[in-house]
């Protein structure tokens, strides 16, 4: 299990630094995101069901969660590598956090790396839906706690 050692803000700053190395080159950025996507461990087939699909994404995105020792663990997959790459960034930031941390998280890295301009408005909306769904799970766990 992932236990987060850095703060949400620190991880986001790490991501921004990684993307800075790409010098804003569009093609390199897309290739890098796809590589991240290919590195994301695939989701067990049994979770790839309609109930786990996130609404509002153009591509298919499945999201499941676990709640272990007060921390939320996300697992996710998609049928496209670019979307998987975007998810993997969110997982890197939010996995292993308490529900309250996730609910309060200010996710600024997406704007800072200029992702909106790279992936276009439709996918950006999909990205917003992913965040919403992750926060929604966190809210549900915090209510249970």
């Amino acid at each position, binding site marked *: 299990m992932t236990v987060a050692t850095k703060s949400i803000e620190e991880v986001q700053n790490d991501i921004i630094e990684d993307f800075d190395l790409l010098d804003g080159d*569009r*093609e390199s950025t*897309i*290739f890098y995101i*796809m590589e991240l996507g*290919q590195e994301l461990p695939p989701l067990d087939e049994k979770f790839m069901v309609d109930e786990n699909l996130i609404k509002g994404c*153009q*591509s298919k995105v499945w999201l499941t969660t676990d709640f272990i020792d007060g921390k939320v663990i996300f697992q996710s997959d998609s*049928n*496209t*590598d*670019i*979307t998987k790459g975007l998810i993997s960034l969110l997982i890197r930031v939010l996995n292993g956090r308490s529900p309250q941390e996730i609910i309060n998280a200010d996710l600024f890295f997406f704007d800072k790396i200029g992702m909106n301009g790279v*992936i*276009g408005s439709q996918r950006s909306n999909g990205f917003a839906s992913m965040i919403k769904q992750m926060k929604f799970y966190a809210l549900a766990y915090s209510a249970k706690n």
Partner: protein
Amino acid sequence: MIDVEQLRSEFPILSTEVNGHPLVYFDNAATNQKPKVVTDALTEYYDGYNSNVHRGAHALADKATQEFERTRELIKDFINSPKTEQVIFTKGTTEGINLVANTFGRANITEGDEIIVSTMEHHSNIVPWQMIAQEKGAVVRPIPITDEGEIIFEEFEKMLSDKVKIVSVVHASNALGTINPIEKIIEKAHEVGAKVLVDGAQSAAHLPIDVQQLNCDFFVTSAHKMFGPTGMGFLYGKEDILNDMPPFLGGGEMIKEVSFDGTTFNTLPYKFEAGTPNIADTVAFAKALEFINKYGKENIAAHEIALLEYATEKLTSEIPSAKIIGQAKNKVSVLSFVIENIHNYDIGMMLDARGIAVRTGHHCTQPLMARYNLEGTVRASFSVYNTFEEVDKFIEALKRIVKMFG
């Protein structure tokens, strides 16, 4: 032979850059680009003689009406319609099909009747028929197709009976490129008394269209796929059928006389043209038709097919993990394909990063995608202004993508 470089210079957009690269526009089946004569015509109309048509008795109205009607004349010749009145302006293919479904369909389709379409139809040639079928208790039946993407003609023949009121098929498929044997389909459908609508969205600018020789009952298309403006198109229909059809929209221009005791309708084509029409785009469409006539449709098609063959050969030989969807013998210049292990959206985005515009996804043909068990394809569609060098760039970009992610 067309001088492609010279022709390209008529299209300002072709010398723009996208994402730091010269634009390579391969999304022509969605909409093609406009030569400057067409966009100039829009400003000339608004700046020079903007006025409502058929109404005002003044010089501008007269000029607007003349230009507007001149487009109808040009269309008449373009498709060899017997009469000008048989050309009805619409906002495109979709409206043309809806008009026929709502008027001819509503008047002639009854419970238990059948409407035949094909598996490769665009949603706009499925949904209007489903709507009328549901209202009337009729059924919509698709003609099956082969793995190569061709209509199975024997199956179509078996589907024919006196229950079939209309056969509505695409002339050339936007998702596969397949050119359907429309003459044979029309002939067979007429034998059982069915009428035939031809969806000419992908054929009007690429294939010879002679509605009298085809003997189709309806032909619909969109101007924006013919170098013309968006939101503009036309419906051709046989005169007696159009005369028998009830009107579609009610309003100004489509009436002869209105009183609260009853209303009489105008004659063709005005009966189907309620309200102030899209005058500017209609006028500009004339310039698009003249553009096609100037270069010659056969010459345009010859260049497009050469590009298709070149791209098909290169894709097949240089990217073995690509699979072409749509391998009919007769095709318009549409190259649809999938690549193993890489999603079509991702390919589209990576090509876009290099300024190459293609379409990805289901192309508004979900039943067709289901037939091939696909979520979507990558579609490159070529127009007369595209070049062999552009195809090379496209193949190079794909090779790079496959090398990294395939």
